[in-house]
């Protein structure tokens, strides 16, 4: 596999750096070329890679690094720390409404895993002592409401539906009232997948947002996404103002460079990762693990 040979190469370059008592600018340039290739092969966005590499280069060429006793190790550490720094940051936890009733709105491109992740979140919240309810606002995809109902049944969480209503904002608003009335403390709203360039459907989400004022708008992103991840993320964030990201399908061999790219263009934290199709396959996000995954180490 191309992946392995690349990370082997990277390891090799790092090893070489480690072994050196003295580092020249040329050594660093060579290492940075390999880092750049590794990041591109891991699907990190082109512009993000360019900025990243020049930031690392600048730090590495500082006299405190070059004149230190272990310059190679310092460079490796800079690469790692920068990656973690880019992906981490404050507030990667879900925030709950101080009033006691929290609304989560799930949005994203088609097929990224929104409906499944609704079930996973409901399951997670239940385990944390919350009383969640689900709400079906995908009025387009064939059997989308059925799907959420099956999901709800599987995790034993009620699902609010209005099968004859063609206005998601009305469905969501009604669900909020119903959930509050019945004593639920979290409402998770599933929405149809859509392209960020589909103006009519993006407007629909804006209406839903206005109607229910969610505490968290969570963008669901497929970890296998390539260079387009930034376009989608920026599109959703510009239009809606997202609060966080859930990265799905990390159970395969996708390197997940999309995570770095999405974090970088939106500045919003990654809150959870999806690691399987079952409803317990949701984990909190660890920036350090993601950094090594992206670099293939």
């Amino acid at each position, binding site marked *: 596999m*191309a992946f392995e040979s690349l990370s082997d190469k990277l390891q090799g370059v790092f090893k070489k750096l480690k072994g050196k008592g003295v580092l020249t600018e040329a050594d660093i340039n060579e290492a940075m070329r390999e880092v750049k290739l590794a990041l591109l092969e891991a699907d990190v966005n082109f512009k993000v890679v360019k900025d990243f590499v020049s930031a690392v280069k600048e730090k590495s060429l500082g006299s405190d690094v070059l004149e230190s006793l272990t310059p190679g190790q310092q460079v490796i550490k800079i690469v790692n720390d920068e990656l973690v720094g880019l992906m981490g940051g404050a507030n990667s936890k879900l925030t709950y409404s101080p009033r006691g009733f929290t609304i989560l709105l799930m949005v994203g491109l088609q097929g990224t895993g929104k409906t499944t992740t609704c079930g996973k979140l409901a399951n997670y919240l239940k385990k944390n002592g919350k009383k969640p309810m689900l709400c079906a606002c995908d009025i387009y995809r064939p059997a989308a409401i*059925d799907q959420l109902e099956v999901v709800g049944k599987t995790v034993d969480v009620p699902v609010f539906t209005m099968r004859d209503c063609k206005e998601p904002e009305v469905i969501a608003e009604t669900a909020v009232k119903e959930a509050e009335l019945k004593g639920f403390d979290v409402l998770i709203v599933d929405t149809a997948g859509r392209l960020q360039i589909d103006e009519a459907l993006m407007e629909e989400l804006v209406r839903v947002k206005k109607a229910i004022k969610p505490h968290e708008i969570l963008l669901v992103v497929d970890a296998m*996404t390539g*260079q387009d991840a930034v376009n989608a993320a920026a599109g959703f964030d510009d239009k809606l103002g997202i609060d966080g990201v859930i990265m799905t399908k990390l159970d*395969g*061999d996708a390197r997940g460079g999309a995570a770095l790219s999405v974090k970088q263009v939106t500045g919003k934290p990654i809150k959870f990762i999806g690691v399987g199709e079952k409803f317990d396959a949701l984990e909190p996000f660890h920036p350090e693990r993601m950094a090594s995954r992206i670099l293939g180490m």
Partner: protein
Amino acid sequence: FLGRTVDEELLEELEEVLITSDIGMDTTMKIIGQLREDVRKQGLTTEQQVKERIASIVEGLIDKGENHQICQETPLVILMIGVNGGGKTTSIGKLANKFKQDGKSVLLAAADTFRAAAGEQLELWGERVGVNVISHHEGADPSAVIFDAIQSAKAKKTDILICDTAGRIQTKKNLMVELEKMNKIIGREYPEAARETLLVLDATTGKNAVSQAKEFGEITDITGIVLTKLDGTAKGGIVITIADEFNMPVKFIGIGEGMNDLKEFDPAEFAGGLFNE
């Protein structure tokens, strides 16, 4: 107004176009290497000439001639495979619609018995398009669904049977074994039928698509790719790497969620599309 001259900056820009459309680094280097040579040998001097040249190099990599066409023989069994959420079920609905319009009889097999309401989703597509769907209850053995569908297709002399399968990540051994079993059942129960195995790839996918083509290709004989979601901003360039490395032809592209949003693949149009804003 004179066009730009051909310089390093232009070549770098074109390289960036290739990388940002998800073409892998190796293929990108190969394309740019070829371009440099052609610029020199053919004495290309304008930006326009260079852009036309690079589009035709890309076209050369992705053009698989007659292999882009779907098999015309009947009876035909099409097995749709791919990772989760790529657009298998939707593409089946679109394909069924196309075949029906071509005057063929079509039957669908709901062999995704795993995902919540996958059967219902396919049944709604069947209703929408006007074709029958064979399905079992959730959790049933997918091979049993395919077995039943084959018997039904034979009895009714159906032209084309299309089998939906559950999305699966290509590194999951047990799920790949399950797929292998479905594939074998078709060969054993319906040897007289012609076969197509279509790998459904989401155009937003990055480098992982190469691993998908490799792993799915190891357990089935992939006859073509359906590249979905090209109506978005993703360019789907990774199929160029795949066509280059595995010689797999793209057969159809998906350009929306409606039943008419499927088009036959056109290599020249696709290659040109990479360089249009």
